[in-house]
């Protein structure tokens, strides 16, 4: 079917040719059958016409015969009598002719036989009547009645026969028409069967590839994409099959790509270190990664399908969804509130940083919520460690300054005491000499030499120097001791042993202590100016606030050292005041200010502009952690290039 007369046919061509062929066949069957039926119908009609004609002639003969016979009787003409008899003879001839007809039926045959008897009787009765007439010159009653009866019987038989034949002719016609109808029906049926057979054959050929395509489509629908075109013809179906095969191949490739992507995404999802929970719009968890299971202590199948609220410590799903929807309008993810918490399976609360965003379908419709939570336990622990480390760093730094301070003070205190010791020894030896002189005076052995000796002894002891300097030395020693005492006391206040609970603290005293222990950090580069305002007791961790203040003071000193011209001192101003519900500690320096480019990074852990050994970049980070996170306070700064920087600590009162 691929080529017809060497012409490559498309499906349309095949169908057109097929229908043309079927049409031709049916048309020729129709034409032929019609002709055949017509011929048959004519023969039947001709036969019927002949029989009718004979029957009619018979009837006419019977009538005229009877009339002629009767006319003879009336007119008395002999010729007519002969004609009447001849007619009767002739009638019989016609009747026999009719009997000889092939299609004559039995009942007609019987009628014709009966008619023969009637005819014989009529002939007998006619002859008898004629004989009576010739004998008597008139017709007598009985012979005429017999003749009339015989003629009537003849006439009746003839008419009956004529009617029968006419009826039969009609019935035959009807039968013929019926047969014709049957034949037409049979031909139509045959044509239909032929058409159906042809159509089916062609249909099967045409639809076979379609069925293959259909089966392939079903297989594709069930996920089997291994379909290849057999390419047996070049028609549209073949093109369709090829297109379908290409489509299946494309789908196979796309599916492979999708499966690959899916697998990658699944790997990424599983390997995320942060807890990821995906929720349906009604708040049920639909996916949880390994980190989520680790953090929360559940198996994956225990999480999936359960409401998110069961593992939310502080927030509620509905609130998160609202926030996410609000946040989604500007395309950002939300961080809902401070310190959200998740609940571990064993009931333990886990501090996390929670980021939520809307899950969207490809069409952009909201399909749930994605919660990404970072476990802050480790973070908090590291922060505490960092604070501790920084505290140690600060204490180490202070220790060297404090050692210097104490060493210096010890130096002059001990100098004083050595001086007092030596002076005492000198004075005691002088007193001995005075006592000897006094003894000599008592015994009357006092001589002018004694006086000279005493003068020499006083000179030896350098008495005026001692008189002038001893009191000063003792004052210095006392001042030095009180300085050491102050330093040690400040150290104690500064280092304030870590308390678990916050306590009411005299903030001014705390700041003063910090400035005292830190004096060695700034006193060589800056003058210190303090202005302590009236403050109520502030509930806080004094040790940590001190650490924060110390960090700011050290930074101030460094800023001044970096900025001041060599051999000039800057100014550090420390002020405290009450501002509404806050206690404020402001620490200003006359350093070079913080460059704009790094202002947003100064609180980052380990961010530093200082060389190694001078700072590790934790001071401000720790100060902020202490003030903002532990005390719910604020730490801010204002900086002017070349003018200096002011840091301000705000702590909530009460």
């Amino acid at each position, binding site marked *: 079917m691929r080529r017809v007369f060497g012409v490559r046919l498309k499906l349309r061509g095949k169908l057109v040719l097929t229908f043309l062929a079927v049409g031709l066949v049916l048309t020729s069957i129709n034409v032929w059958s019609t002709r055949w039926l017509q011929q048959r119908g004519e023969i039947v009609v001709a036969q019927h016409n002949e029989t009718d004609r004979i029957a009619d002639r018979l009837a006419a003969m019977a009538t005229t015969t009877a009339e002629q016979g009767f006319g003879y009787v009336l007119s008395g003409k002999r010729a007519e009598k002969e004609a009447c008899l001849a007619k009767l003879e002739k009638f019989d001839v016609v009747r026999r002719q009719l009997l000889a007809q092939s299609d004559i039926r039995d009942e007609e045959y019987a009628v014709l036989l009966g008619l023969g008897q009637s005819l014989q009787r009529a002939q007998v009765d006619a002859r008898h009547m004629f004989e009576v007439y010739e004998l008597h010159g008139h017709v007598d009653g009985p012979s005429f009645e017999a003749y009339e009866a015989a003629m009537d019987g003849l006439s009746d038989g003839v008419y009956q026969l004529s009617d029968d034949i006419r009826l039969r002719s009609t019935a035959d016609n009807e039968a013929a028409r019926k047969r014709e109808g049957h034949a037409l029906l049979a031909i139509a049926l045959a044509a239909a069967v032929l058409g159906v057979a042809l159509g089916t054959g062609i249909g099967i050929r045409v639809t076979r590839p379609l069925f293959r395509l259909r089966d392939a489509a079903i297989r594709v629908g069930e996920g089997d994409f291994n379909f290849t075109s057999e390419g047996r013809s070049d028609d549209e179906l073949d093109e369709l099959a090829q297109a379908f095969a290409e489509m299946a191949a494309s789908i196979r490739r796309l599916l492979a790509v999708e499966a690959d992507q899916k697998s990658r995404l699944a790997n990424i999802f599983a390997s995320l270190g942060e807890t990821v929970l995906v929720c349906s719009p009604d708040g049920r968890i639909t996916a949880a990664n390994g980190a989520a299971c680790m953090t929360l202590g559940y198996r994956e199948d225990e999480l999936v399908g359960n409401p998110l609220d069961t593992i939310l410590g502080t927030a509620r799903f509905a609130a998160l969804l609202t926030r996410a929807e609000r946040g989604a309008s500007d395309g950002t993810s939300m961080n809902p509130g401070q310190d959200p918490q998740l609940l571990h399976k064993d009931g333990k609360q886990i501090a996390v940083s929670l980021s939520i965003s809307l899950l969207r379908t490809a069409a952009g419709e909201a399909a749930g919520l994605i919660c990404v939570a970072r476990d802050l336990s480790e973070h908090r622990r590291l922060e505490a460690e960092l604070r501790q480390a920084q505290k140690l760093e600060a204490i180490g730094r202070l220790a060297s*300054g404090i050692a210097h301070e104490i*060493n210096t003070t*010890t130096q*002059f205190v001990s100098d004083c005491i050595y001086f007092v010791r030596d002076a005492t020894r000198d004075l005691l030896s002088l007193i001995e000499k005075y006592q000897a002189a006094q003894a000599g005076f008592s015994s009357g052995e006092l001589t002018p030499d004694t006086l000279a000796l005493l003068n020499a002894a006083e000179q030896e002891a350098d008495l005026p120097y001692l008189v002038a300097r001893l009191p000063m*030395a003792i004052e210095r020693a006392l001042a030095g001791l009180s300085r050491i005492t102050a330093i040690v006391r400040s150290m104690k206040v500064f280092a304030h042993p870590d308390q678990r609970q916050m306590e009411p603290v005299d903030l001014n005293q705390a700041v003063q202590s910090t400035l005292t222990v830190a004096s060695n950090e700034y006193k*060589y580069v800056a003058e210190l100016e303090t202005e302590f305002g009236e403050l109520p007791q502030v509930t806080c961790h004094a040790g940590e606030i001190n650490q924060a203040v110390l960090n700011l003071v050290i930074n101030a000193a460094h800023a001044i050292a970096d900025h001041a011209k060599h051999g*000039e001192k800057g100014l550090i101003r420390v002020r405290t005041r009450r501002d509404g519900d806050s206690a404020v500690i402001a620490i200003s320096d006359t350093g070079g200010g913080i460059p704009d480019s790094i202002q947003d990074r100064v609180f980052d852990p380990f961010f530093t502009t200082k060389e190694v050994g001078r700072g590790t970049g934790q001071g401000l980070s720790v100060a902020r952690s202490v003030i903002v996170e532990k005390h719910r306070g604020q730490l801010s700064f204002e900086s002017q290039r070349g003018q200096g920087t002011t840091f301000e600590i705000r702590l909530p009162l009460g």
Partner: protein
Amino acid sequence: MAQTSMSAPARPVVLFVDDERNILEGFRDAFRREPCEVITALSAADALKLLETRHIDVVVSDECMPKLSGSEFLAIVHERYPGVIRIMLTGEASLSAATRAINDGLYRFLSKPIEPDELRRVVHDALRIKSATEASVRARLAQGI
């Protein structure tokens, strides 16, 4: 003790430099019987002024001072007055300061607190070396002439 030099008309001069007045007063008391003149300065700048105006044999300086530090000051002294013997006396010196001072030919690096006897001995030794050096220089000059 160098009793002989006590009566000498030109007593050697020792300069103490420290930003802590109490320290300087203490040293003054400690050296009251020493055969040398004790002068003091509260800052490196003051000390440099004194060096400009008069003869000084030994300088004892603190390290931690505002503006000019002790090691910076002693470096200037070394440059301008190479004959002056330099001693560092510090409460808590950074390693870099100590290294620099020693590399610059420092005579002694001392830590506070130091006992007066020890300080006096060090200064005394310094003065003896100074005079011995000057004597040999004079002798060599004399031989050269």
